[in-house]
């Protein structure tokens, strides 16, 4: 039995009130086990990003509970939330959100520096992570000189900087072409194999299909859950219409 890293109960976030009340997230119960990759899929505007922001402490819920790594985090002060983001969570965004004036390695070491690591330790960790995402050669480059896929890999490396218990990715391939998407998926797969817990929200079926578990979201609520592990195999030939 694996431990639960993340669990939410009745998680709700509303915007506005009265006539214009929007239930961005509406009573979500989510449990993520250690080492699991969970994909949350749904159409644009169904509340995926909001859910991720709540879970990662970037935003506060209107109601409900969030337990992260055995700690209740929905009532924390802004300051404690910042520490939580620093140590327990790593974010990967659709728009990468790298700092253009910092080199690749400086971007990756930034969370470690913010967490008060020594410059030397932060740099060593960043270099190691860049090697892991296959971008050691680009350490001194500026993000603007990288392709979209490479930038997103840098962003993933940055998310791993402080060895978070949970990596949260918001449409990580939304800005990428098919080949770059494959690169990022491979990277997520490697993380998965290394035991990293991942929650990915996306409307890209390819990411969803590679997750252990796929949750469908509509209008702020979970409507379906599919476990994709196991199942059919050896049917690729059928896909290519080779048989018959």
């Amino acid at each position, binding site marked *: 039995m694996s431990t639960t890293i993340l669990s939410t109960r009745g998680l709700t976030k509303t915007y506005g009130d009265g006539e214009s009340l929007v239930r961005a997230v509406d009573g979500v119960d989510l449990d993520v086990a250690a080492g699991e990759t969970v994909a949350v899929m749904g159409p644009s505007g169904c509340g995926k990003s909001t859910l991720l922001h709540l879970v990662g402490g970037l935003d506060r819920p209107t109601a409900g509970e969030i337990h992260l790594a055995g700690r209740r985090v929905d009532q924390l002060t802004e300051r404690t939330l910042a520490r939580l983001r620093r140590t327990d969570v790593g974010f990967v965004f659709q728009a990468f959100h790298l700092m253009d004036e910092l080199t690749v390695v400086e971007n990756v070491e930034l969370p470690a520096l913010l967490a008060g690591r020594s410059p030397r330790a932060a740099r060593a960790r960043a270099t190691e992570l860049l090697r892991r995402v296959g971008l050691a050669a680009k350490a001194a480059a500026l993000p603007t000189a990288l392709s979209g896929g490479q930038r997103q890999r840098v962003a993933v490396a940055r998310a791993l900087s402080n060895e978070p218990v949970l990596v949260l990715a918001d449409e990580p391939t939304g800005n990428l072409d*098919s*080949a770059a998407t*494959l690169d990022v*998926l*491979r990277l997520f*797969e490697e993380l998965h194999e290394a035991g990293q817990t991942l929650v990915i929200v996306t409307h890209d*079926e*390819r990411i*969803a*299909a*590679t997750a252990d578990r*796929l949750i469908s979201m509509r209008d702020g609520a979970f409507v*379906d859950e*599919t476990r*994709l592990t196991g*199942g*059919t*195999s*050896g*049917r*690729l*030939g*059928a*896909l*290519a*219409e*080779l*048989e018959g």
Partner: protein
Amino acid sequence: MQQEVVLALLAKEPSHGYQLRARLRQALGPVGEAMNAGQVYVVLTRLEKAGLVTTESPAPATAKDTADRKTYALTAKGQHRVAEWLTEVSWPKPDLAEFHLKLVAAAAAGLADPLSIVDTQRRELLRRLREAQRAAMAEPDGSDAALLLEGIVLRLQADLRWLEACERSWTTRRSAP
């Protein structure tokens, strides 16, 4: 499998059956794994009968390994056929109409919930997508097979999106009779 595929593989130079099989496997990667080893020889035999391919057996031929030792080559007619095939614009069409009619019929007769049919289908396609995607991820960049897998993945993705549209459509139909 299309006869023309095997024919075209012979256009470069006369080859042994096992050479053809290796070339196919390389181009198809994991997709070709399900391919029956004898399939190529079945096709070659048909082509020979149709006069598109000639064979040449090295002497002395032994009964045992005939098939493997033979060299296949294109005839003039075969070459003509290959050239013709390359200019064709035929395209495999996914049979969406069948699935669509399945939903319509199920709903009309009240035999089954179209939404659950969509859902089951979606799960199936997701499994296939997962498999194709994993195969693609395992493939080295730039291999012939990777390109084929990408095509399969994109295709499945398109199918899944259509299923999503089906689901939306049948949900609204159900809620507004």
